[in-house]
């Protein structure tokens, strides 16, 4: 059965530049496709949407009893991204207090000016360059600077957190039949070190708050609304990594998509008002997050297939985004697309916490870059991709200006 090897083929580095034909094959094979290791792969829009809203589906890797393409070995309590309600709700709500409405409605919006300033500085530095790397010169520095500012992390410690981030993100990769013992050990260690670093930073702000989220976390006056040390470590590591890792890919994928489609690039240059919708379309067409894992709490029936409790189910969000039963001409990048309810930020209770910042950053980055791209060309197409199949994006995107 070819369809039983789909996940293996999707995660095969060979197919990183273009997994979309494999997603089409997945949707052809049916709504629920069993993999050789006993896990399931789901790539149709409506089934993914239903499962993301189904309270019987768990995000917690600890309830898994059957094979998973994800690495194992997580024994400590995961961050809220991989917890279920009510614990997920409690931690997410506490993490949201200094970040968004109702308690901090202005935090993200107040970043607008700063984001504009950062993009301006970045483009200024590239003024006389003939060739640049979109990833290293632009798509990475912007979100890392923004998340450092939001959390209150000194930008100078970059070398530390870049190494930690790489190790931690590697453990979140997906790939069947691989020995991940060493990778997992390194990842766990990085997670611990980074957590300690962030908690120490936060502790320095106790009673001496600076206007950032770490300060807010440790200076919360209501004891019932405070994170424990362990929760603070897990939460801030999650916010730091999720707060920049995916945005890098969103911006880079955006530039790549536009350079491959000069008529759309031209369209956006003439109509900058379309930019917010173009970002939404990018989130559908080339999303940074391709897959998420869920595990049923009880035996559940999906489109005629019964999936046993504890079995790993991989939701191919990027495939759902290209499902022709949901989107008209799904393989076309169309910034004017109406009714664009994509899975770019997931859906349901785990809907991306940082979506408002990601949108702002992507709009600012593309808005700044587009006027400079008119005569640009790709040095390498496809560009070299990062190893990760789940968080997919180019490692470098060299372009000639």
């Amino acid at each position: 059965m070819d369809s039983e090897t789909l996940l293996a083929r999707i995660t095969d580095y060979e197919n990183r530049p273009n997994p979309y034909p494999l997603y089409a094959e997945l949707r052809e094979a049916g709504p629920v496709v069993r993999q050789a290791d006993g896990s399931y792969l789901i790539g149709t829009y409506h089934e993914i949407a239903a499962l993301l809203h189904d309270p019987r589906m768990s995000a917690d890797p600890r309830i898994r009893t059957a094979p998973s393409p994800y690495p194992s070995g997580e024994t400590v309590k995961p961050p809220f991204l991989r917890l279920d309600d009510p614990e997920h709700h409690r931690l997410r709500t506490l993490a949201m207090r200094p970040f968004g409405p109702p308690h901090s409605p202005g935090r993200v919006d107040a970043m607008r000016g700063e984001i504009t300033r950062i993009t301006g500085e970045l483009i200024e530095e590239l003024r006389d360059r003939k060739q640049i790397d979109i990833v290293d010169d632009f798509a990475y520095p912007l979100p890392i600077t923004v998340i450092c500012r939001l959390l209150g992390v000194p930008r100078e410690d970059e070398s530390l957190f870049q190494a930690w981030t790489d190790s931690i993100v590697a453990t979140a990769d997906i790939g069947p039949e691989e020995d991940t013992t060493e990778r997992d050990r390194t990842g766990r260690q990085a997670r611990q070190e980074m957590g300690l670093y962030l908690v120490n930073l936060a502790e320095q702000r106790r009673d001496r708050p600076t206007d950032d989220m770490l300060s807010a976390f440790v200076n919360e006056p209501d004891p019932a609304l405070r994170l424990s040390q362990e929760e603070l470590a897990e939460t801030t590591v999650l916010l730091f990594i999720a707060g920049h890792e995916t945005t890098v890919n969103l911006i880079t994928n955006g530039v790549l998509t536009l350079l491959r489609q000069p008529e759309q690039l031209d369209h956006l240059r003439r109509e900058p008002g379309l930019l917010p919708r173009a970002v939404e379309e990018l989130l559908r067409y080339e999303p940074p997050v391709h897959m998420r894992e869920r595990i049923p709490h009880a035996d559940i029936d999906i489109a005629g297939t019964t999936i046993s409790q504890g079995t790993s189910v991989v939701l191919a969000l990027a495939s759902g985004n290209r499902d022709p039963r949901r989107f008209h001409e799904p393989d076309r990048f169309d910034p004017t697309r109406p009714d664009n309810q994509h899975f770019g930020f997931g859906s349901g209770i785990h809907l991306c916490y940082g979506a408002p910042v990601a949108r702002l950053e992507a709009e600012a980055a593309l808005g700044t870059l587009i006027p400079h791209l008119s005569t640009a060309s790709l040095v390498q197409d496809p560009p070299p991709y990062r190893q990760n199949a789940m968080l997919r994006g180019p490692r470098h995107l060299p372009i000639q200006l």
Partner: protein
Amino acid sequence: MPGDLQDGRIVIVGASLAGLRAAETLREEGFTGSLTVVGDEPHPPYDRPPLSKQVLLGKASADTTALPMRRDTDADWRLGVAATGLDPLEKRVMLADGESLPFDRLLIATGTRARPWPNPEEASLDGVFTLRTSDEAGGLAERLAAGPGRVLVIGAGFTGSEIASACRERGIEVTVAERGPAPLVGALGGTLSKLAAVMHRNHGVDLRCGVTVTTLRGDGNGRFTGADLSDGSRVDADVCVVALGAVRNVEWLAESGLAAGPRGVACDAGCRAFNMYGIVTDDVFVAGDVSRFPHPLFGYQMLSLEHWGNAVAQAEVAAHNMVSPGPLRRPHLAVPTFWSTQFGLNIKSVGVPTYSDHVVIAQGSLEARRLAVVYGFQGRVTAAVTVDMAKSLDYYKHLIETAAPFPPPLGSADRAIAADITIPSDVPDPSGLSHGPTVALTGHLPDRRLTVVQPTG
């Protein structure tokens, strides 16, 4: 009727949400004929949900809730003039200014108005309000901004509860009088009404249940000063909001021969109005709060809904059917949904909670003030209400649409011990409430069974 459904004269009576959406949809669907929209208020279509929330909180003014027009409707908007009659034979709508509008097809979308205080003299006291229109909301908001000593709210349905919540958020003392046993009991049944009562009291509302207001008192100069209650007590207040539910605007249809009554204008699933003999018309359509339509998920009972989403969905179906030949017409089968925000809680509902005999707390708990309550009728899921847990709603909606067995399947995250215990849904007789329910099952109540007598031999 002209052969070409895309041409001719269409009149829409009602210039609110349903009327506007219908007008937009008619043009989207290619209608090129003449379009007239009649509204008794002088304002262009506006949104009502903010009136009892942001407007009363002083966060938005009543004249800023205009509904966005999604496209040019190219319609003749006759605002500030009420329709007074319908001649179905001559196919004309009579207007209050003496004019009459000829039509080929008509859409009735006249909605509802606030049920007034039954004693007109007391109702006219300065300081006594109802809350339905933008003007009413503007007047009440002004009075709340002036800092009254106490506000009396009569009726603890959704509108009454939202008003009480807004008052407390502004630090205004408020008394709520409800004839039923608890707030929201008519819409949500016993379990959630207990939570609602706790929320009122925790936020400092002087909540009086099981009482009625017998008299509104004035100071002799026409100013409201307080009210007498059926338990012999008296409430001194400067402002009174009468939140007794809604009255359907059907009086203008009295001589039309349509099946129009206190519960609305009856229509088929395609929004075509019935006449008083139950014969379906093909040129008169109905949409929004004023309509009553059969719904297969709820035993084909005729439903009247006062929900934003229903007004939109039904207007779109009605408009589509007005310009489409029979085989291309669509049924209006949307699952009812509504939301409310009060006392810091987000309440969302799907299905018809009053169409139930039992409920179960499927997720969360009353103590956590975060829960999903699933309603069942005769062993199948018919509704769900979430409090601060709206992300689960789609899942429960799917259970309703597929008539899934009640209680719902095991395995939900955040499942309390109580999740295995079904309890009576405790939906009271609507006649025992101060306010009208926002969903009316206008056929028979679910506790009454009809028996079909089969002929023998």
